[in-house]
Structures are given as structure tokens and as C-alpha cells.
């Protein structure tokens, strides 16, 4: 049995949230304006991901060039101090490679790559603190980073995790919930009601996916709104600067 009551009969989770509550979500654009063309930071609870974007730019290696569209390359770095035990992660770890690939594929659908052929866009994601699964944080940070870099995109992708405690879906699971329960990461494009990304970490029964997806999509919408707010703030500050 788990150390914790994952979802109490009173309807509260290990950290005091109810099933449909996100952790405190904080994000900002242009956090590392001198270091890259675009940058962003996302905090979901104590998880923290920083994204820097270079490009669209001339590819460093000609071999990786595509004459029809821009090439999107994602590297995920996990800081050794990001989790409870200090461990060194190298970017060619299988898990991280898989994560990078998933991110590249997810964003291939929204980035208008054909507008900048023969270029490459390099996205570096730095996971500074991980509390729960890191996929959702990476998607959100990358989305904001790309927007900050001025990469043409169809729409936002907002992402959030959901875990299943028996039949109750729990929105935005933290580390404890993720390690105890099967969980999904869901991404939604813009204001649509469709999931453009669904990744399951453990086996989940098919008939239980539906309510989890519904909840996750609602969560993504809320995340979308928060990010949208921040993008507008960043836009206004840029406008101010130009006016001055």
C-alpha cells in the first residue's frame, strides 16, 4: 500500500487539491532575451522548465537541411539537481531521446515550417526541477519559447497531465501521484476540443480514458488561457519599447 492516501474519501489529494485543480501555474516569455532568439520559463507547481530557441537560422550542418521547410530540432536537458536524488542525465538517454522526438512530432503539426525553408530551429529545454512528469512542462515551455522567437505557428499547444486513481481522474499530477498511478500527458491545439497529443505512461483501461481526456482537455484550456495572457503581456511590453 502506498505511503499516502492518494485520493481521500473526502475528495482531497496528497497536496490538498481537488481532482480538477491545476497546481499553481506560472509562465513568462523573454526570460533569457540575451542568450537566444526566443526564451520562456514555465512553472507547474514545483516543476520548472526553461526553453531557449535559436532560429530560424542557417543550419550548422548542411546535411541536415531541408529545401522545402525549416528543420525543428529539440534537445532536452535534465539538470542533475532536478529531482530528489542527484543523478546525472545525458541527452542521449533513451527516455530523453524519446521525449525530444515526441516534442518534434507534436510541434511539426503547428509550426509553419514551409515559410522558412533551408533553415533550422533549435529548441533547448532545460528541466530545472521535476515534480511529476516533465512532458507537459516541456510542451508548454517550448510553445512559449517558439512564440517568443517569432516562429510562425498555427496556434498554441497547451499541455497538462492527468492521472487515474481508480476511476477518478486527477488533473496535473505531482511527483507522488505520477509514481503511484497510471497517467497520461495530453496536449491541445488552440481552443479546439481535440487532443493533439496523448501519451500514456502505464497501461490504462480503455473505458477509463474518456473521462480522463475530458478533464485533461479542460485543463489544457485553462493553461492555454494563462499562457495567452502572458503572451499578450510580453507583446505589450515589446510594443511599449518600440514606441519609446
Amino acid at each position, binding site marked *: 500500500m502506498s505511503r499516502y492516501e492518494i485520493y481521500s474519501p473526502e475528495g482531497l489529494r496528497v497536496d490538498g487539491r481537488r481532482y480538477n485543480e491545476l497546481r499553481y501555474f506560472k509562465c513568462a516569455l523573454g526570460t533569457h532575451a540575451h542568450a537566444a532568439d526566443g526564451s520562456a520559463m514555465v512553472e507547474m507547481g514545483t516543476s520548472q522548465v526553461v526553453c531557449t530557441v535559436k532560429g530560424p537560422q542557417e543550419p550548422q550542418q548542411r546535411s541536415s537541411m531541408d529545401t522545402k521547410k525549416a528543420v525543428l530540432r529539440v534537445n532536452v536537458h535534465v539538470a542533475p539537481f532536478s529531482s*530528489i536524488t542527484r543523478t546525472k542525465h545525458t541527452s542521449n538517454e533513451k527516455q530523453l531521446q524519446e521525449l525530444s522526438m515526441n516534442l518534434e512530432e507534436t510541434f511539426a503539426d503547428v509550426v509553419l515550417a514551409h515559410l522558412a525553408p533551408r533553415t533550422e530551429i533549435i529548441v533547448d529545454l532545460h528541466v530545472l526541477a521535476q515534480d511529476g512528469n516533465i512532458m507537459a512542462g516541456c510542451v508548454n515551455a517550448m510553445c512559449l519559447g517558439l512564440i517568443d522567437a517569432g516562429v510562425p505557428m498555427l496556434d498554441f499547444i497547451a499541455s497538462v497531465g492527468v492521472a487515474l486513481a481508480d476511476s477518478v481522474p486527477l488533473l496535473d499530477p505531482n511527483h507522488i501521484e505520477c509514481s503511484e498511478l497510471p497517467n497520461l500527458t495530453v496536449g491541445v491545439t488552440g481552443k479546439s476540443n481535440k487532443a493533439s497529443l496523448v501519451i500514456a505512461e502505464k497501461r490504462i*483501461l480503455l473505458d477509463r480514458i474518456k*473521462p480522463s481526456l475530458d478533464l485533461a482537455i479542460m*485543463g489544457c484550456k485553462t493553461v492555454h488561457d494563462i499562457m495567452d495572457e502572458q503572451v499578450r503581456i510580453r507583446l505589450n511590453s515589446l510594443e511599449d519599447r518600440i514606441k519609446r
Partner: protein
Amino acid sequence: MIAKRSSKQSVAHKVFVRSTKAGNAHKIFREQYLRDDVSCGSVKCGECSGKAQPDFKGDVVPPVLANTDLYCVVDTNICLKAIDLLEHPDCFTDVVIPHTVLEEVRNQSISVYTRLRALTSTSFQSKKRFYVYHNEFSESTFSQRQRMETVNDYNDRLIRLVTKYYNEHLSNPKSSFKAVLITNDRLNLEKCRSENILAASLHDYVTELGNAKLLDLVAIQEDAADLKSKQKNETSYAPYISTSAVLSGLNSQHLHQGKLSISRYNYLEASVSVQGSSKPFLVIGRDMMNRAFDGDKVVVELLPKSQWRKPLQTLTEADQDAGAADDEEQESSILSEKERLVMLEEARNAKPGEAEPTCKVVAVLKRNWRFYVGNISSEFAKHGERDSGALRSVLVRPMDKRISQIRIQTRRPNELAGKRIVVAVDDWPSWSRFPQGHFVKALGDIEDHQAETEAILLEHDIEFRPFPQAAMDCLPAEGDNWKPDELVLTSGKRRDLRDLNICSIDPPGCQDIDDALHAHVLPNGNYSLGVHIADVSHFVEADTPLDLEGALRATSTYLVDRRIDMLPSLLGTNLCSLKPYVERYAFSVIWEMTPEGNIVNTDFTKSLIKSREAFEYTEAQAKHDDKSQNDDLAQSLRILMKVSKMLKQKRLDAGALNLASPEVKIIMGDEMNDPTEVKIKQAVDTNSLVEEFMLLANITVAHKIYEHSPQTAMLRRHPAPPATNFDVINDQLRLKGFPQIATSSSKAVADSLDTIVDPKDPFFNTLIRILATRCMTSAEYFAAGNFAYPEFRHYGLATEIYTHFTSPIRRYADVIVHRQLEAAIGYKHLPPSHFVKANLEKIVDNNNNRHRNAQLAGRASVEYFVGKMLKSQKEPMVLEGYIIKVFSNGLGILVPKYGLESIIHIEDISSEEEPASFDESNYALILANGRKLSIFDKINVKVESQLHEATGKRSVKMTLG
């Protein structure tokens, strides 16, 4: 559905340091969200119910606490020590459990946590109303831990805050409402006083209620110092070493951990199985056991080699200390590192016959305390005398001889004398000779039928309370009128097998019919054979309260006069039971077999069947033998019989063991509790017919589920016994001039057992089989991922893989296997909890334990009834018995007629003037008159029933006849 965002203001952080198993310290940083919608849970309050939030299903948790004037807030210690009192109907009616307390309880005792949670799932209309208040998530009661504040102090402060909150939140000028903190912590009580918070000790609270019977239930709470001074003359034990010393000791292999098991023959001798050592380490004497109970997880330290010894060859039954181990001069135990390693190596490879390694307990990691049934020792109380009403300290002698006497305090020792009582253990401080406990309840008079039965059940930790309502709610609403739904056949997933001539064969009076069979000849000359098993998993959905209750019980328990079901009897004896003449759901395994007995095809399917007849073994036998009967059922019985004989031959050729254990059947008279006759069970061919097909079904299913879930398939293995287990019996056989039991393989064992016969005594072979069985290891359930395939082997059945599929009504393992088979044949998805190997391992452990307990309880029940039967005899009976063990001070005797086993004590056959001598190498006792009593001798013994004065336990007394 809406998703909510949390505001920055609501986040608090909890930082704490946790040490890991590897000895590292981790700083853990955890978020906590503070809310304004945590309800106080009281019907008095209008404010909170307005803020209540719906859960996922849209329900709002209704208030629980009633409109009374006193709410109790309890602390962790009270929950752990006085859970019986919390459950008592006459006190603690409205209780607030702060979440801080619930978490602490959960970390310390899952069983108390479960009981506490059961108390909270009630409504405000019920008699007891418990509410968990999530204080750490509420803005009103949360407080940051202060610098330098210990966790305990912090938690105590949080609990005081809760008490304060309830008093303020629910205060009303018109009522005299108060919330009281119940705690036994003196410091906390003082702080409450200074902070003006109402608080009381458990003792004061119960005294206030003015119910003397309740007071007895309060654990000893005299000041430790007072008690210590009172008992300073008693022995004192070595204090346990600190946790950090344990961790570093285990790491450096100075110390070893394992489960302590105390010998059933000699309670001063215990053994600890340690990883990496083939033989267990012995723990000899009370001081070396150092307050450990049977089943405790302990940490031990090896003793120097000079203190190693052979296992005691004597029996110890009376309460006396083994001075030997303690009086020996303690040799300086400082050893060089090298010497220590050499010693450890020797200890691990200790051979039989040589001195065996001994060790001492230096710490207890986990207590295995449960409730103990016993009686107040007669020197403390006299039945019939009046109690003075003063609190007295008395010793309770548990029925289980391996458990030390337990000190309790009571105001009515004389009233309780002569009764079976249940006590709980609270503590065993190093300065106290006996553990301290408290009275829980009285079962009834000693030798009262009801009380003794309950005692047997409690002693074997068998859940016999009625099924909880939540579990009963999972049963089909139609109850006994439930009918299978023919519509399920249209889905194509369940096959219609109602046209098959299916019948069941069971012992007389069987109500829970798990299995039924069919057989007929196919057009191509092959046989179609089928085993149809009750479809329990159709009714018991995974992870429902009914499933959880079944998982907890794990098995049905069969006592002589009573059956304790694993599942409610609506399912067990009706809806699941494959009764004749009615339609039932089943899970079928169907083979096509050539007339030579080779399987051509195997098929698994859920089915709808209609059994034609429920036979008793003898009826089926008669029908099979009666040549004049040629109906379909008679024919199928003959096919089944023919095939089963082929199957059996194949198994025996492969080396399956035909072992024996004396199974006794008790025939009851008209009065339910008067046994009139005891018989050894007789087997007819139809017994083995059913058995062969069940084995075949189990093996077939085992292959299938292993193929589908190689990690989590629930299987059953029977490890080969180490050859050394047979050393003693082989030595005894050699002395008596019989052939040896070969141990190289199960086939060798089986073949050699056939050769050990005494032409003059047909029972002798059975006797050796019984004794050989005791040299075997026991079979166990396991999750497939935990062993390599060759280790799956079932030694006794001589099959490479095995599981339990055929008795889902009375074994929970079979229910899991049914679900795994459902998934393997694509009938239904596996429930998520069944994917997790860790989860399955817990089920496996529980099943193994419960299975053993149920068997022991069954045996204890037989023993009790045999004792009763003997008691009703006016004259002691003289019966034939065999000597199966020889000790320096007694003989172990087995009486085959009644399956009785007991001991002849040396005091009863010799005296100081005429001493008996013990010839250890020849396994013999030589009496003063020259009579030699040696192992395997057939002798006449006088058998009578005897009431043991001290324990009130009736047992069999044997003397030479």
C-alpha cells in the same frame, strides 16, 4: 467539468528530511495547497455546507458529526493504542480525526488505519460518527513548522490548533458545545492547559463516562517510572540498539535481519531465516530472544562460536527459564574483522550434526502483534470471588504457548477468571519481564463451545465477522432469484453449453460446488472432456468492496462444525455454485483427447451450463460400477474414470508423490456440539477422478496465463526439499533396517517410498509417508516474474508449472487466475490493479499466510472435537500408537485411528528411583525395567482427555497402555 487554477497565495511548502534505506538523507520539498472549503463536517454548521465542493461524481460529502455537545479530537497515540475503544459502541460517538493524525497512523500501522477509515465511512444517522478533518489543507488550521520545532511537537501543535478551531468555529452562545482533545501525552496536556484548550487523558475521559467495563479497556497508562520501580526485581532485557546502528550493522553484515519463528515444540527456542544462509540461525532462551514475538521482523547478531549448539533435544512446556544459555560465561565477544567473516562463512554453511549457529536479537524492526486469546492465570484470580473494584495487575496466559504471558490491568479479575479473554499487546519495555497489554473482550467461559470456536478463529487471525455492508451492496440485487441472462450468449463471448451432460462430484453435504465435469465421444472417436468452474469473477468485480473483502479473507475456512466463507453465501452456495438442474455461468476448459489420452486440442471459454446431477463420491462410484446403467451420465463417468486413470499413471511415471496426512472426519450426533465418532477419511476412485481433472485444468490454465502475463501470472510452486531434511528420518530407517528414502528427485522419493514396507504392518508405509511429508517444504503462490522458469516446478505434483484455477468460491488466488485467464483469452481486460507486480506480491503473501492459517485452524478445530469426544469417554481408551519422535524427556506418539498426535512425558513412565535413560544415537528411551522404546515402535497407549490447569486448554494425555 471545469478545470480550476490555483492562486499563488494558496501554496504553502512543506520541507522535511527523510533518510533512505541506503543511509542517505534526502531533503524533500513538497507543495501544499491551502483551501477555504474544507468542511468541519458538522450538521450544526451552516457555513461550511455552503462552501462544499462536489467530487468527480458530482456528489458533495454530507456532514457526519451530529448535533451533540461533545466532540473528541484524538491524537495518533490514542488511535494506535486504543482503537478497540474507539470502535466501542458506548464511547467516542462524535470524533474528529485530524488528517495529521490519520497520516501518522497510516505510516505506523496499516491495520489500525483501515479500521479507522472504516469508522469514518458512516453517516450522521449512525451510532458512531467519525470525521477526518483535513487540517493541513485548511487555511484556518494550517501553520508552518517553526525553526527547531521537532516533527512530533509540530504535529501536536497542529492537533491543538484543530481542537481550538472546532471550539471557536462551532461555538454558540445558546449551547454548551465543546471539543476536547484526547491525548495521553503529558507534555501536550500541559500545553493545552496553558493555551486554554480543553483536553483530557483517555483515562479521564473514560472515567467521566462512568462505565467500569470501559475502564478495563484502557491500556495501562500508569507512569512508566512508577511501574518500573514496582517491578525492579524483575529481569531486565538488553535495550534495543538504535536505528542508525541497525542500518550500519546490516550494511556491514555485522547484523542480519529476518523473521523470528518460535518452535512449536519448545517455546524457548526460535529460529531466524537469514538471507544468504542455508540454515536458519537459532535463538535460544528468553534473554537471547529479547522480547521478540513469533513472526516479528528482527535484527540479530551472531554469537561467538563457543556458544553455538545443537537444537535442544528436550521439550519445554512448563513456564520455566532455560538457564543454560544464560548462565554460560559470556566469552569476550570482541572479534577481529577476519575472525568475524570466517565465523559468518561457517554459520552460513553449517552442516547438520555440527553445532548450529546461534544469535541474539538486538532490535525489532516490525512487530507482529495481533490479538491474543488466553485466560487469567489462576494464581491471580478465583472464579466466584467478588472483585474489590480496585485496579489490579494480572497476567494473562495466551493459548498459543509460544507467546509470553501478558500483563494487563483490570478491576474485575475474578469475574474474568475462568473465561477466554482477548487481549492486545501495547508495549514491552526492557525493564519488564512481561509485555504489557490491555483487555479487549471476553469470549465466554472456558470449554464453552462458542467461546472455544471463536478463540480458534481469533488465534488464527481469521476474519469471521459478517461481511461489511459495502461488500453486500455489490451482490446482484435480485438475490436468490437471480437468473442467468440468455442475452449474453448473443455477444458471442459466452458459449452455450447447456446441452452437455455435465455433473459434479463432491463430498457429502457440499454446498459450494466449484467444479463440474463432462465427457463424451466425438464423431472422430476422440473424447471431448471438460472441466467447468464456477464463474466467480463474473460476480466479483475487481477492486470493489466485495473484491477487497475476498482478497483480505483469501480463503474459506472449514472448521468441524462451521464454515467461514470467503464470499457471501448468496454467491458461494447459490449463484456461483454449480448446482444441479439450474443454469449457471461457468468458466470452462475443454480438451479433445485421443482414446490413448493425448491432448489434441485445448479450449478455454466462458459458458452457460446446466448440471444434470450433483453426485457424492460414493454415489458416482456406484453409478460407475453398476453395469446395468447405461445412460449418458453413467457413460461419461466411465470415460472420465478411464481417462483419469491414464492421467494419474502419467503423473506417477513422471514422479508425482503420493503422500499421506491423516485426515480425520468427525461424525456429529444429534446435538450439534457432541461428536459421536471420529473416522479417518476413506477415499474411493471417484475422489481421484475429480482430482486428476482438476490438476489437469490447473496445469493447462497455468501455461496459458504464463504465456499471456509472464510477469504477473499468479502461479503456485513447490520447491524441492533440501536433501538434508531427510537426514534424520533416513538415519532412523537405517537403524531399523529399512531401505533409505532416496532424495535425488521426486521420482526417486516416490519410488523409494514404495519399497519401505513392513510385511507385518500395512500401516507402516503410510506412517513413513506421513513423516516424509513433514520433511518437505510447503507449496506457495508467487508472481511469475519473481522466479526463473525452472524454479516454477511443483515438486510434489511433478509438473513444471502449476496454478490454482478450480476453486474460486473458496480461494482468492483462483479468482485472480480467472481474471488473468479472462484477459488471456480476450474476454475482458485485466483490471489495472492486476498489472502491478508489487500489488500482486501483496496478494500472494496474504494468500500464502491465510492459507496456512486456515489449515491450522481446521486442525485446531478437529483437535478440540477429538478432545471433547475423549472427554465423553468414561474410561481412558487403549489404542495402538507409533513412536515418531524420541526426546530425552518424552516420546512423540501418533495414533492413526484418530489421527491423534501427542506426547508421553517421561514423568509418567519413570520416576526418580526408576529413571529412564535416553539413547540418543539409537533414538530410544530405555525404561528402568529394561523395556526399550525406540523410534517407529508400535505400542499400546492409554489416551484420555486432560484439562490443562494453567491455560484451560483441553488436550490429549497419553501414557503407556
